[in-house]
């Protein structure tokens, strides 16, 4: 870029310097000589007017005399018009102008440019920007602009579709979920969109599979029964609901599709391990809500369900406070409090779990890691 800048500057300076260097002799004749040319043309014109009958013979003679007089005057002026070689004053002028071209022009132009220009901002043609990686450092700003565009034209499904994963990457899962919802509404449902929407909801919900997310995953599975990701989350939901047998079955079902080496398969094994399958030490089964309770909960309206969960949480909390309990129970309480969004109490429970399980480093690690997941890590 600076090469082009210098080139232009040099050209500009040369435009001043080159003519200065040339001798004045090459220049055209003095002005009076030009005048003579014009008067000669006028003489011709008088002839034409006479020919056309616009003027009389007499008038033509008079006009010719008049023009001839001017012509003579011009010729005399031309002979007087001898320009001598430049003297001292001329040399001074020359030096001043040369300085102007060599020093002032480049300095002024570059100085002004540095003051007003933005040499650090590259060209950003739209096509190139759209092709460029989304890991661009100005990602949040790009998102803001797309948001502006969507605010004006909220019916642009493609826009929502593009925006949603960017929101996820930026750690704005609620917005991502809403964006996926809009994309689904405008572009129609699709396995990936439903799954990603569900995932966004789960992340937004601190890892808990809510009913809404659950529904999204179910729709995704309906669209593609083979899809791994929605099934993974459905199995996770079962685990979180403490439906142990159903969860184990779901995880194992998922594991059958693994060809080996997949990252998710490893995660499935870990989940199975937590449920005490295969590698698991014989952990005590957690006393969760009974099948009937869950069935009842499913039939309830959201706030009723919230109340039911609250009552179960209170019961569990009281029991743990009074008698202590297993690691799994502490973890369950933490998750439940996170679902209820009761962060103050969640923090207390984390502290109490830390106290109660202080002799079991493995259990402590589990509590800490879940606390981090739930956004309460320290």
């Amino acid at each position: 870029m600076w090469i082009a800048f210098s080139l232009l500057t040099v050209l500009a300076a040369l435009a001043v310097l080159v003519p200065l260097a040339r001798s004045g002799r090459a220049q055209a004749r003095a002005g009076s000589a030009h005048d003579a040319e014009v008067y000669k043309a006028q003489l011709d014109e008088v002839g034409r007017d006479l020919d056309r009958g616009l003027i009389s013979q007499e008038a033509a003679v008079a006009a010719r005399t008049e023009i001839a007089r001017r012509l003579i005057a011009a010729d005399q002026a031309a002979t007087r018009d001898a320009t001598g070689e430049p003297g001292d004053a001329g040399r001074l002028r020359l030096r001043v102008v040369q300085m102007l071209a060599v020093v002032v022009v480049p300095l002024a132009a570059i100085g002004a440019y540095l003051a007003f220009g933005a040499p650090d901002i590259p060209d950003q043609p739209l096509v190139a920007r759209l092709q460029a990686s989304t890991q661009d450092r100005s990602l949040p700003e790009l998102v803001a602009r797309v948001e502006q565009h969507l605010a004006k034209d909220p019916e642009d499904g493609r826009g929502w579709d593009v925006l949603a994963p960017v929101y996820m990457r930026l750690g704005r899962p609620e917005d991502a979920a809403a964006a996926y919802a809009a994309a689904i509404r405008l572009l129609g449902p699709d396995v990936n969109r439903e799954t990603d929407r569900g995932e966004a909801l789960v992340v937004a919900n601190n890892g808990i599979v809510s009913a809404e997310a659950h529904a999204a995953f179910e729709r995704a599975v309906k669209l593609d029964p083979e899809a791994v990701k929605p099934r993974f989350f459905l199995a996770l939901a079962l685990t979180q609901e403490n439906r142990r047998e159903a969860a184990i079955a779901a995880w194992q079902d998922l594991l059958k599709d693994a060809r080996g080496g997949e990252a998710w398969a490893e995660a499935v094994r870990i989940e199975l391990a937590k449920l005490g399958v295969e590698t698991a030490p014989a952990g005590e089964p957690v006393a969760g809500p009974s099948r009937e309770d869950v069935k009842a909960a499913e039939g309830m309206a959201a706030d009723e369900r919230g109340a039911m969960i609250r009552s179960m949480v209170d019961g569990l909390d009281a029991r743990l406070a009074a008698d202590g309990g297993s690691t799994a129970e502490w973890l369950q309480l933490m998750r439940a409090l996170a679902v209820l969004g009761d962060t103050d109490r969640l923090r207390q429970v984390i502290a109490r779990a830390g106290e109660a399980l202080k002799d079991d480093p493995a259990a402590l690690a589990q509590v800490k890691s879940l606390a981090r997941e739930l956004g309460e890590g320290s």
Partner: protein
Amino acid sequence: MIIELGHFALILAFVLALVQCVVPVWGAVSGDRRLMAVAPPVAGMQFLLVGIAFAALSHAYVTSDFSVLNVVENSHSAKPDLYKITGVWGNHEGSLLLWVLILALFGALVAAFGRNIPADLRAATLGVQGWVTAAFLLFMLATSNPFLRVSPAPMEGNDLNPILQDVGLAIHPPLLYIGYVGFSIVFSFAIAALLLGRVDAAWARWVRPWTLLAWMFLTLGIAMGSYWAYYELGWGGYWFWDPVENASFMPWLAGTALLHSAIVMEKRGALKVWTVLLAILTFSLSLLGTFLVRSGVLTSVHAFATDPLRGTFILGILVAFIGGSLALYAWRAPLLKQGGLFAPVSREGALVLNNLLLTVAAVSVLVGTLYPLALEALTDEKISVGPPFFNLTFGPLMVPLLIAMPFGPLLAWKRGDLAAVSQRLYAVLGLALAATLVTAWAQGTEKILAALGVGLAAWVICGAVAEILSRARFRDVGLSTGLSRLYGLPGSAWGTALGHAGIGITLLGIVAVSAFEEEKVLTIRPGESVEIGDYRLAFGGLARRTGPNYIDDVGHFDIYRGGAKVAEADPAKRLYTARRMPTTEAGIVTFGLSQIYVSIGEVHADGGADIRLYHKPLVTLIWLGCLVMGGGAVVSLFDRRLRVGAPKPARRQLAAAE
């Protein structure tokens, strides 16, 4: 990098313009040829630099580079490519860059083709052009820089007003600007001549082609704008005496006067003082127009975003240039030697009359344009000066001008013989009277004014033809010699005739439309038809059509004449979806020189529509006449004699051989 290069080129152009302001003028005044010689290459470089800046901005538009504020504000990635380019000058900053580009272009043209101009005059002229360029570059860099960046860049722009997304509007501003700004070089010539004390016949001969060039583009630009308003705004009008239209019309009137007074000055050495004044005034009126449009003093379709700083800056430029040049004029003009004398009845006399009437007409337009502004500023009273004012003041001034027009070219220089010229014009007068009588007979005596108008138009057109025929002298030399004489006539003679005939043609169109136009406003339902002129329009109903960025409700009309279907018209009500902006797309069908014009208003629930329907007889002549005038200017420009004084021997031999 391209954008920043454009920005740098613009700044460098400003710095170079400062050099161009000083060095050549210094050289011209002190007689130093080397300093004078700096002017042409610097003017060329100037054009190159502004050209780079303009290309860089255009590139940013075409590639939708939203890191440029100007692009964000005025473009949209989904806009058709053509309108991405025209969007460059569809806004204040970009159009200003185009303004400066044309300024630099004229400087470069004088540098390239002005070899026959004396070195000192050329240097001083380019120097003065440098002042104008520097002033506008400073204005642009200080208040309206098109290269301001946005970081981080938005992903999408705000789009251009849909009404501006039109081919007509794409061409109109550049033409108009070349005209407007072209007069800057004439202004520079005038100021340079005053500085050097060289105002003579030769000066007039050098100035004329530049005046002609600017005048031609201004004529075409105004005509283009008028036709655009006619077909795009859906009101069926072609001239509204809108202040912005007036802003372009005043320089046209003054420029036309200048074109004529320069002839007197060239041929007879007279009217020097006046011609120089006109050259200054013409460009001053261009500047005034720029000020009115850009300062926010006027609210109009054309007026761009307003900003008090810009208004003040432009006012400063206006005052400095107009005040400075008039002061210089007052100081130097008395030193000019008066040229040849002439009798009141003579070619010169006729041209003086032309100048008098055109200048006074320009003043009446100026008064009509500025009076409401002045009155509001002084008394807070709000008024509008509309067409009635201009019809009453401008019209009567044009009538004597048009009556005198055929006489002018036939009168001899110095002292003409009115009786003899009148004799030559008997046939023309006869034709004009015949045209009047036929019109009165055909249209009824109550339209006697219109008949007289048609007669006047016939008088002007036939007068122009008669002038050419008289030059050929068919009567004296016979047909074949006459034809060869006709062929050998100088371009300027043809230019005069075409220019005058063009005015007549435009006048005929205006008279025909004003007097014989038929207009109907009605509600029409599918299956119904309506008669206008000799035509019957049958309405076929409305249909919805979807365009790239709009939705049309298109009405279909079959047009019948004498029972046979001759054409179809499809006017539409258009809604630009992005901005929810409705526009009216008129349906225009041309029959010969006349047009049927339909536009749709309210659409009714039962499928009917309110329509406005016109039969506009001879309406196309209004713009055809302007084209003829422009053609006259082109022919004149190719007149070999305008290039006289070129010291190249080759050309002399050529001339001798002819």
